[in-house]
């Protein structure tokens, strides 16, 4: 029985609801994870009538606020995201009677499914229990009258994700070589705006249009002025938040750029397909849920289709190294962890490390929050076997935590870098980035350059 508390409405379990009226009057605050992609996603929300503000603050106060309101043994992303949201409420920039918080919920067996509850606990402790929290999920958890993900909206979010991945991928391949400072970022920002405007007009959404736009984007990036020798490729994998968010990984990408490397950061699309595919796998492993399996299968195929369009667009410019497809990843991970390993980043994390090795990276940073449970197995737990199978693989696991010092993290990354630079020196001219279709299981590792020490 819904009960009312003044203007606030609650569901039968006492959860504060986000009402239709709130949709009109409230501003939704959302944390940022991937700068480009989340900017576009924010626009999609706005197209559907939500007022959204994305938080981009990065100062130390966020961690302190997080530590104050969240159990300190919880994972670092929760401390950061909740700290950032509460800090924003406290900043005086928002009318706290007209603001709600947006947070994602995956619904799996990892702690991340509980972030939303930790956020509510934190709000209670901060004396802000009147602020509604809205769950963004595809599992049907926590419905709200004033918020729903309609199919057309999900479609736009998915497309925003595709464009976001494409822009990030190309930007990362241009940034280390750009002849005009920030040209790659400016181009990415330009396209972000242009695409959002297109979304507003209902354009750029069909597969055909996406293919055209994506090809335009790739062509634009190909025209950017670039110079200099090929830099060492360094892959970044890990727990989704610390992998992407500069706030979570102490600006890892910038650090790698400053060290003279080209960061290779696999996109969000594979993670999304992975999460959808988990439902299909569940149905196969434990039986049951036939309908779910069909629905998930349809959705998976749709996004895989979009991914193919994106890969083709990158391939249309041979100067760029294309990303692998979800299918490639699935094939690579066989013999390491099972497809049932789905909590957190699950088997995808292992697969991404393998994909990066096959793509010829000199080293990999495996980033995770201190004590990350799924990564004990899929991250740190697989490095040994990867090393056995690919003796010259060069992976460093780095823990991120409020108490871990940046200097320790950077020192470990530097160790990894000095090993791969060695390898590069050993083979005279650096090979050009490999252009796709190189992923074959049988020749695994043999294409790699040996990492040796000077004698």
């Amino acid at each position, binding site marked *: 029985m819904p009960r009312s508390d003044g203007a606030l409405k609650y569901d039968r379990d006492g959860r504060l609801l986000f009402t239709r009226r709130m949709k009109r009057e409230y501003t939704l605050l959302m944390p940022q994870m991937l700068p480009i992609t989340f900017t576009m996603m924010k626009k999609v929300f706005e197209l559907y009538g939500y007022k959204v503000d994305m938080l981009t603050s990065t100062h*130390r106060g966020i961690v302190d606020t997080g*530590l104050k309101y969240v*159990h*300190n*043994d*919880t*994972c670092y992303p929760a401390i950061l995201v909740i700290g950032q949201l509460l800090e924003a409420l406290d900043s005086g920039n928002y009318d706290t009677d007209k603001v709600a918080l947006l947070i994602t919920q995956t*619904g*799996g*067996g*990892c*702690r991340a499914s*509980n972030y*939303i509850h930790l956020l*509510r*606990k*934190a709000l209670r*402790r*901060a*004396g802000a229990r009147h602020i509604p929290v809205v769950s963004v999920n595809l599992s049907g*958890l926590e419905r709200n009258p004033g918020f729903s993900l309609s199919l057309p909206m999900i479609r736009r979010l998915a497309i925003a994700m595709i464009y976001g991945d494409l822009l990030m991928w190309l930007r990362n391949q241009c940034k280390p070589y750009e002849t005009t400072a920030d040209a790659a970022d400016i181009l990415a920002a330009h396209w972000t705006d242009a695409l959002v405007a297109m979304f507003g007009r209902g354009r750029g959404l069909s597969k055909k249009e996406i293919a055209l736009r994506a090809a335009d984007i790739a062509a634009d990036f190909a025209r950017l002025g670039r110079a200099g020798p090929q830099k060492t490729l360094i892959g970044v994998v890990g727990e989704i938040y610390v992998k992407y968010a500069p706030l979570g990984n102490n600006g890892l990408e910038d650090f790698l750029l400053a060290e003279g490397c080209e960061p290779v950061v696999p996109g969000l699309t594979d993670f999304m397909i992975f999460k959808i595919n988990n439902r299909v796998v569940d149905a196969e*492993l*434990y*039986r*049951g849920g036939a309908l779910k399996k069909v629905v998930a299968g349809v959705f998976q195929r749709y996004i895989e289709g979009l991914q193919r369009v994106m890969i083709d667009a990158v391939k249309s410019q041979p100067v760029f190294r294309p990303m692998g497809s979800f299918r490639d990843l699935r094939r690579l991970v066989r013999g*390491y*962890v*099972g497809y*049932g*390993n789905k*909590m957190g980043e699950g088997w995808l994390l292992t697969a991404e490390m393998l994909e990066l090795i096959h793509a010829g990276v000199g080293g990999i940073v495996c980033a995770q929050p*201190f*004590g990350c*449970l799924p*990564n*004990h*197995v*899929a991250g740190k*737990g*697989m*490095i*040994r*076997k990867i090393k056995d199978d690919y003796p010259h693989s060069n992976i460093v696991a780095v*823990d991120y*935590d*409020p*108490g*871990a*010092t940046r*200097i*320790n993290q*950077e*020192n*470990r990354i*530097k*160790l990894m*870098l000095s*090993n791969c630079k060695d390898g590069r020196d050993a083979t005279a001219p650096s090979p050009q980035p490999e252009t796709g279709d190189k992923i074959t299981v049988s020749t695994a590792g043999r294409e790699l350059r040996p990492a*040796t*020490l000077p004698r």
Partner: protein
Amino acid sequence: MGFTVGIDIGSTTVKTVVLSESGELLFRAYERHFSRAREKAAQQLRGARGLLGGREAAVVITGSAGLGVSKASGIRFVQEVYATASAVRRYVPDADAAVELGGEDAKIIFFGDSLEERMNGSCAGGTGAFIDQMATLLNVGVGELDELALRCERVYPIASRCGVFAKSDIQPILNQGGRREDVAASIFQAVVDQTVAGLTQGRELTGKIVFLGGPLTYLKGLRMRFTETLKLDSEHAVFPDDADCFAALGAAALCERGDAAPFDDTLELLERSADCAALADTLEPLFNTREEYDAFRARHGAAAPPVCDAERYEGAGYLGIDAGSTTTKLVLISPDGGILYDHYGPNMGDPVSVVLECLREIRARFDGRVDIKACAATGYGEDLVKNAFGADLGIVETMAHYRAARYFEPDVDFIIDIGGQDVKCFKIRRGAIDGIMLNEACSSGCGSFVETFARALGYGTAEFTRLGLFAREPVDLGSRCTVFMNSSVKQAQKEGASIESISAGLSISVVKNAVYKVIRASSPEDMGVKLVAQGGTFLNDAVLRSFEREIGAFVTRPAIAGLMGAYGAALAAMDSGTERSALLDAEALANFEHTARPTTCGGCTNKCALIINTFGGARKYISGNRCSKPLGAEPSSGPNLMRYKLEKLRAMRGTGAGTGARGKVGIPFGMNMYEDLPFWFEFFTSLNFDVALSPESSRAMYVKGQRTIPSDTVCYPAKLMHGHVECLIDEGVDAVFYPCMPYNFDEGVSDNHYNCPVVAYYPELLQANIKRLRDVKFLAPYFGLHNRRGFERMAGEFFYESFGVPARETRLAAGRAYAAYGRYKRDILREGAEIMERAREQGKRIIVAAGRPYHIDPEINHGIDALITSLGLALVTEDAIPRLPRRGGARKRGVLNQWTYHARMYNAADAVCARADMQLVHLVSFGCGTDAIASDELREILEAGGKLYTQLKIDEVSNLGAARIRLRSLIAAMDDADAAAGDERYAAV
């Protein structure tokens, strides 16, 4: 190339070497830099001026603190492990591996076909710093520590996860009278175990091994532990010359033409870099002005005991002894609370001697004048002191502290006590302790950390903390634990932070650790209205100030903040009404003799490390025991569901009702097998398999498997699985069966029914990391028992493929297995109900130990069950509490109730709230991420139901001292609550 110079700027020391063109070592320096890394580096290089002045030399910097210097000076930097590796290649070309220990980092480099370089994870930092700290703890220099270690007779098992844990294990051994020689060796052994377990990660450390770095160059005892542990002979253990400078040698070797420059220019660059400092994270100053500080001092001057003329006083006296973990405190009071005598000092690893000295002094000064009517002991060493000196009563330290706080603030409703090792907080409601928060192992030792740190820099603690009072930019050093703080301090030092900023930062970190990790408070209302802050650490104004700042409220700090435990004990002695104390008299003290002999109890599988203390040849006191067996009494046979379950499960091996004809299936007895074994045993025996169960977990088994553990922060139960699997392989089974199970049974009380990610997928980790598993049939299929029909089909396919078992047989076996599992669960419920019923008949209190099924493993809980029952409590587990129906009884959770094991704990907490005679104790494994969610929720449920939340964190640390104090505090609080309830009933009549 001409001269080459390598400068290694580490966390604690600076090393400089100069090599000639032919590679000859012309100059070397190795010195501690005492936080002045840049100055020291410049100074050392200046030292080479006679050699290099006016010439060209190539210079390369390395070392963890070298990065900043390199940036500031423009001199090239190479990573230090990389540098070390190239030095080893050059000087010991046939080395198979190198182990290097430094002040902050430990490294292992494997040579051979595939080069691997490893550095310790963030959690296991501070190797050299740890040895320094431990030496301080024993009140000896590092050199003396080494000498002590060479004279050891036995080595204690000490948690090797990190310095904080090791310290938690060492402290009680000292307090119980362990020999310092043995402790010293055990400290080195802990370093060895940590290095070997944490860094080898599945790669065997064999062949010719080179040992490098300062500690391994200078400490013979440490070398000995390494060579013994790795079973190396003198040919395979290489301790090269200049092993302390290898990274610097490597840096010199890595010099390239481009690095060459006129020496004097380079020197100037380095000298200039010494001056620039840029602090990243700074905080508000503690005090901006002298006036602010004076006002603060005046406010805190009020709470002091009455003045009393100790030299002339005649009459009754009451003595309190607080034998704490790092300090010993004694207070002798007059009946009005005036202090006649007090002592506060380090126990120097030998509390008995310290107390003896004090007592002799007291007898000498006061005999004839003051009649000591009663004496009470408290603290970690309570029992030892009580037995040694004839104290009349022992009192739990929490109660002692409360008693003292009440003296100064009768309406106190919150006490925070920060001592050397522990942080204790109590909430008080209606005159009884209503909530206890004690730090867990991870956040312990903050108080003494400040002390050791001050001493390392050559200051007294008081002097050091005073430095921070007016620091303009205190540095932010984080709050996770002292290992992390230590590393933050190093970073701050590298950035050029002043001693003042670091001092203030440390005081603030100690407080943050207490407020956010122990109390988990986000506002002063979370604590109370009348707060009393005590414990030795609060004597520091900087700590007190940052506490008031952090919580935004004023508190009372008694003038005797450091003596409160002893003062409370003295007051309790007075309350006891004892008229004639049994305390040893002057003569007995003069003839007092004490010997301590370590031994291992053979009474049961716990293998407790006992220390037998003898006093004057006649009286004996045994410590280190978990039950009463070694004391000659019968082992405690109190109602104990944990033991009942364990015995039931252990019996499930062999062929059961089947023939065993299909072969021998090995099942590792750990993790979720503690829940699912009844199912799988029935399943396999029905299919005529012989079921081999790995032995019960033990420390030895853990050690057997520890080399293949890839993640040092995973929980202990998971780490044990490596040993279990190794044992099964040794036994020679036909297959090892350990399925991946993301889903648990759906018991209908939760939103979802997952296992935690570690339980779910650990088999895959084992398969990838234990090479021997590739030689046996390792079966790790994904199974979901929650969906019976699905399981029957999947298992049918799987066992047909693996063993050719017809699907129909598998289906039948599955049916029996489900039935057997149901029987087992019902049996637990029945036995639990019986225990609870019997307890109620006998008027016993009931403790629900809420944890995971595998927490009944004695190696994981370290005999906590015996401890609980020995305290006269009846013990049941969370799965013996009948499920409250989702609709109706159980309330909606404040969390997503996503894991089956947690759902049981929430359910048990609800049930406990409904009964006056029940309490819940939450068992948590260190590193259990899911319990970060569950502990807050359990606390909320229990506190809303008027119960205490008691958490026992268990890990490799095998000492139960902390657990005992928590449990005794819980009992004392229950007594108090019952007494208060009785009073109310009485008042109502």
